[in-house]
């Protein structure tokens, strides 16, 4: 069966200029991700994981190669069109939560919906906050929440716009083991429920092993791209 691809990367390259020098961060990267699949990108520090995530999500432009996200060739879209695509189809979770400090938990979750102009943003956000167990902290500001709680708000925000694909960059990097475990469980549960494609970036192999496919990077190149024994739901 030919499964539909949500992300198709072909011959991707990214180089940065530093003075007169050219620094190649990613080289000859090609892979694709099935719709609804859980996928992880692993590798040591400096292997180009975060750069790859940024390119996949349209946060940056490649030096060469092609990225097709949700059926759209990103090179044909301008900055605003890419932003619109992200707003409709993409969710994000960051290592350092990246919540807006001036907004309450509820308001933070509402942001993607507000940007879409959704009328029932608050109601839908509240439902999500209930799902992550923070309904009673909805009016608290990020500075009043613990790290684990902040990441749970970020999780709720990531699912708010019902994305087709969710990028998680070291989602447990700033959390202790127990809290990290709880957040990961919640992430997988919500993902299963929503049927979202999940792409996790991590150097934690244990976490990567919970996804259906693992892409190993080293020095900006693909080392391996293997399926795991985890079945697609």
């Amino acid at each position: 069966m030919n499964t539909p691809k949500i992300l198709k990367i072909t011959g991707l390259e990214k180089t940065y200029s530093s003075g007169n020098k050219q620094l190649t961060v990613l080289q000859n990267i090609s892979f694709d991700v099935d719709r609804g699949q859980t996928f992880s990108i692993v590798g040591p520090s400096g292997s180009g994981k975060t750069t790859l995530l940024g390119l996949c999500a349209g946060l940056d432009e490649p030096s060469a190669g092609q990225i097709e996200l949700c059926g759209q060739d990103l090179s044909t879209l301008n900055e605003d069109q890419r932003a619109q695509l992200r707003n409709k189809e993409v969710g994000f979770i960051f290592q350092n939560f990246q919540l807006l400090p001036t907004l309450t938990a509820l308001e933070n979750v509402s942001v993607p919906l507000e940007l879409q102009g959704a009328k029932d943003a608050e109601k839908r956000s509240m439902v999500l906050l209930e799902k992550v167990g923070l309904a009673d902290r909805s009016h608290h500001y990020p500075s009043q929440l613990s790290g684990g709680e902040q990441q749970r708000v970020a999780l709720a925000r990531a699912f708010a716009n019902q994305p087709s694909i969710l990028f998680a960059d070291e989602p447990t990097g700033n959390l202790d083991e127990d809290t990290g475990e709880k957040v990961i469980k919640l992430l997988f549960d919500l993902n299963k429920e929503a049927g979202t494609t999940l792409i996790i970036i991590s150097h934690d192999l244990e976490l990567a092993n919970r996804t259906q496919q693992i892409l190993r990077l080293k020095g900006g190149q693909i080392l391996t791209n293997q399926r795991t024994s985890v079945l697609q739901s």
Partner: protein
Amino acid sequence: MAWRDAKASKVRLILFMSSIVLGIAAVVSIQLFSTNLKDNIQRQSKVLMGADYVIDSRQEPTQRAQAIIDSLQPNAYEVNFVSMIAFPENGGAKLVKVRGMEGDFPFYGTMDTQPILAATRYQDLGGALVDATLLLQFNINVGDSIKVGQLTLPIVGALKSIPGSNAISSSVAPPIVIPYRLIANTELLQFGSRKEYQFFYKTTNDFDLIAFEEKIDPLLDIENADLDTHTSTSERLGNRYDNVGKFLNLAAFIALLLGCIGIASSVHIYIKEKLKSIAVLKCMGASRLQSFLIFLIQIAGIGVIGGLIGSIIGIALQELFPYILKSFLPFTVEISISLQPIFTGVFLGLFMSVLFALLPLINTWYVSPLEVLRVGQSTSKSSKKAQVLVSIAIVIFLLLFSYVLLDNLMFAMGFVFATLLTFAILAGIALLSMKGIRKFFPKRFGFAARQSLLNLFRPNNQTVVLVVAIGLGTFLISTLYFTKDILLSKTEVSQTAESANIIILDVQTNQRDAVEQSIQDLNLPILDNIPIVTMRMHRIKNKLVNKLRQDSLRQVRGWILNHEFRATYRDNLTTSEDIIEGDWTPQIAPNAPILISLSENLASDAKVGIGDEIVFNVQGVLMETTIGSIRKVDWAQLQPNFTVLFPKGVLEQAPQFNVITTAVPDEKSSADLQRDLVSKFPNVSIIDLRQVYTVVEDILNKVSWIINFMAFFSILTGIIVLIGSVRTSKYQRIRESVLLRTLGAQNKQILKISAFEYVFLGVLGSLVGILLALIGSLCLALLVFNEPFVPSIVPFLVFLPGISLLVVAIGLSNIRTVLRSSPLEVLRREG
């Protein structure tokens, strides 16, 4: 370490510095100019007077006065009066100040004439020196003739300048110098003419002028004459310009204060962002003093460099002042550079930036490394105590510095209070708005509008400092605009109404009917024909004026005792008069007590009230009067107004002359009338009020130019503070905007959020500034100008949107770089 850290924050530190540079430049330029002005006045005091001392009298000196004058052997003397002159070549006529001169005046400085020799030869030649501008205006040349009263004489030179005269006074009645011996031939010194006799003296350098003045002046006072020495005159002149200097200094000081507040606010955020670095330093063993000093040295460095740059700009700027103030000064100012204001500039830069930065800097001292690592907001008790101490130090410094500038403790306290009040009102309104928005947050607004409102009270917001900066700048220009409006609208009203614009003075009783006929022949109306009777006060409340003059404890103001009052009589009040006390008596029956009316200012200066008695000396006849009423007089209305008003039935038979007023439709009719009257009645003087309006408008324009210049400093400092504040919050904004973009926000939405925020800040700041100016101008209009105040709509239509747009433009210019930065780069940095 301070240097290494500063290198990394170069751009920001430069911005802090520019906040104070302009303020320092303003203070230094004005201080330098004031010092130069004082030096020039002192150095040129003899040149300013043209003599060592002068005895003057507003009437022909009494016998005793003349004896004193003669015994001192004057080296030169003059009689001067205002009169009409005519140019027979083209029939032009003009009101001038005629100076009949005998002797080689001036003894110091020169009369600048063209040809040069005319200044020394006009007396021998029996010719006139005529104001050079006047010659140009009437297209008259040296060699043509001039008719002064009944005398026609040749013009032997164009008079460019004469000691003691300035451009403003010359523009109303330009000077004409003729030999004293020819004055009688003009036949202009008739009854009622206003004239001044001046006797000029030259002494040796070792002559003790102070002791001489103390001895002679009281003797002359009794005889209605006055002695002025070159030192006392230049001192008075110095004081007059000192006041202008003080005002400018204060305006500059406000600009500097604004800059310091900008520094305090920027340093506050700067330090907050540095707390992590300080924590790391402290963890590694840096002492409180060491970490405190790193930033203190940076700020001190900024202060010194800012002070130095400001001083250099100030030195360049002061070169401009002589051009701006040229018309107000009766001499040319030679600019020289002294070191003292430069030291002041550097000291002010260092001291004020450190003083104002201390408030935020103190946090680094009291916060423990652990607290700093958490970047908490808590301030310990001891830190609060230190902040209170620093705040007290700031107020004391402000008071001391204002005292140095104003030289009067009460004024200094008033200034500091007013400044703090203005700042407090602006800051209070900013805080209240933030509180109000938070409390009544418009939840139904769109996302962009809500997000922008949230930014106003976000952590590290600069709402207060921006509203204060924008508000203060707008306040200054709007106050200026409203005030100028009040003054100008007065003259406009008088010009448009069917009111007099030509005043004909010194009409003798036997000329009255003929003058009226001449005016009517030209189809012009007679609006007023006012009889004038001159008189002096002889006794005030049973105290002889002569005795009062010698009484050092008297409360009556000195001018009253020597003044020749020009009173009138009528049975009605004019539109510029209002009775505020007592009852107005229009007509007096023969032999009934004479109830007169005094103007409010005269009653207050003479310390008299209703029912008090005043005996007037009406040209030799003593007349007992009782004060029946006190009037409020609107002196600003350019029409004949009187301090002493008699009812009808008293002065009709007294020697008198008349003032006739008429209204002319245009300049041609004015010129025709002046020519006609001068040829028939050479002794009358004609004032064309429309010319006076032009001069008033010109003065106002020049004054407003100076105030605009100072307001410009505040506005420019405000803009720099604004740019500084916007730049300071740039990184935080980039982070948030990038996050929003990552979540799918389009550039338009991000722009909207910032635009709304700056629109709010701009509108709030400028609106509060305009409203404060409105209240201030209302007080000025009611209390100082006594005018009903109809505020102009211009500040609301022009300043409000203009300044708001400027704020939005500066704010959005920062966002451009935000929109350009790669989201990934920023997210990575955050990670």
